[in-house]
């Protein structure tokens, strides 16, 4: 029995006092991030539910509103984000095999791609602002008031249902962008400690865990892109 007795292993500076060893600490970290991602899924789930309900209620208005989004920028952004997911995976990989230079380069690339995504998103938002498509009175002095002609509004479709699409669009992409901003912050934190040489094949849980978060944000976008930009294109999109 005495052999099964577990004491705190002394040694690695990153080992926290209440864990028996690095393996347990790593397991807890990874599990914690997965549980957190479950809460994130439910958080976005509420908005996906609202989207599904209103899209089934107002299909024409949603198609019209969706066709007004910039599909080119949306597609480019999808590619940018997938690429950043790839560089993130490479960051984890190079940490696992102990290649510091590759690790730093991958992290820098991920950060740059994340910022590029946010920049393109900002351009899109600005276009919507110019077209008075920001819903409600969210921006004081610039209420929702698009030109019905420019929207190709067909007979019987109410502008308020178009507004509903834009509110869901802004709520979901806005929440997604917020997660991206947090993600870029977390990556900068990783980069800082990675330059300082903290992560090694023995201890790289933070890289792994933040990687999980980054991939999750990517997955949300993988669903947002078709739901917001693509569905309804075939009904006379341009």
């Amino acid at each position, binding site marked *: 029995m005495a052999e099964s007795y577990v004491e705190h292993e002394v040694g690695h500076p990153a080992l926290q006092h209440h864990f028996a060893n690095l393996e347990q600490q790593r397991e807890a970290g990874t599990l914690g991030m*997965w549980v957190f991602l479950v809460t994130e899924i439910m958080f976005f*789930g509420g908005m*996906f539910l609202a989207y599904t309900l209103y899209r089934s209620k107002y299909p024409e208005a949603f198609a019209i509103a969706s066709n007004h989004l910039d599909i080119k920028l949306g597609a480019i952004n999808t590619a940018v984000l997938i*690429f950043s997911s*790839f560089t993130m995976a490479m960051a984890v*990989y190079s940490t*696992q095999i102990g290649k510091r230079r590759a690790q730093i380069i991958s992290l820098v690339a991920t950060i740059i791609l994340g910022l590029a995504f946010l920049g393109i998103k900002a351009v899109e938002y600005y276009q919507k602002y110019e077209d008075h498509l920001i819903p409600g009175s969210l921006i004081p002095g610039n209420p929702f008031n698009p030109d019905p002609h420019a929207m190709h509004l067909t007979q019987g479709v109410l502008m308020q249902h178009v507004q509903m699409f834009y509110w869901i669009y802004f709520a979901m992409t806005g929440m997604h962008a917020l997660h991206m901003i947090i993600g870029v912050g977390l990556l900068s934190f990783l980069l800082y400690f990675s330059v300082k040489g903290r992560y090694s094949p023995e201890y790289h849980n933070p890289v792994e865990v933040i990687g999980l978060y980054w991939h999750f944000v990517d997955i949300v976008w*993988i669903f947002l892109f*078709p739901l917001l930009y*693509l569905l309804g294109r075939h009904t006379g999109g341009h």
Partner: protein
Amino acid sequence: MSEHIVPVKVYVGIFLALMVGTAITVLAAFQNFPGALNVIVAMTIAVVKATLVVLYFMHVRYSARLIWVIVASALFWMAILFALTFSDYWTRGWT
């Protein structure tokens, strides 16, 4: 350490698959498929892409069963939220 190191080749392959999936879904969106097929095609591609990210980029394919259970339970609870909410909406006399 019981962790599995995924070879670079796999990452590159998944990355290319995701890019191809994105291209296909954009092209498919402009085709006029009958009925709800447009939605089905778009969502199927999205689910496949998300599954690839989860299994390979997020290493779930090589992870403990507990992680599988966690992922599955998140999807299950989403399904509850949708199924029971729409069990109300689909049977309502008014909409």
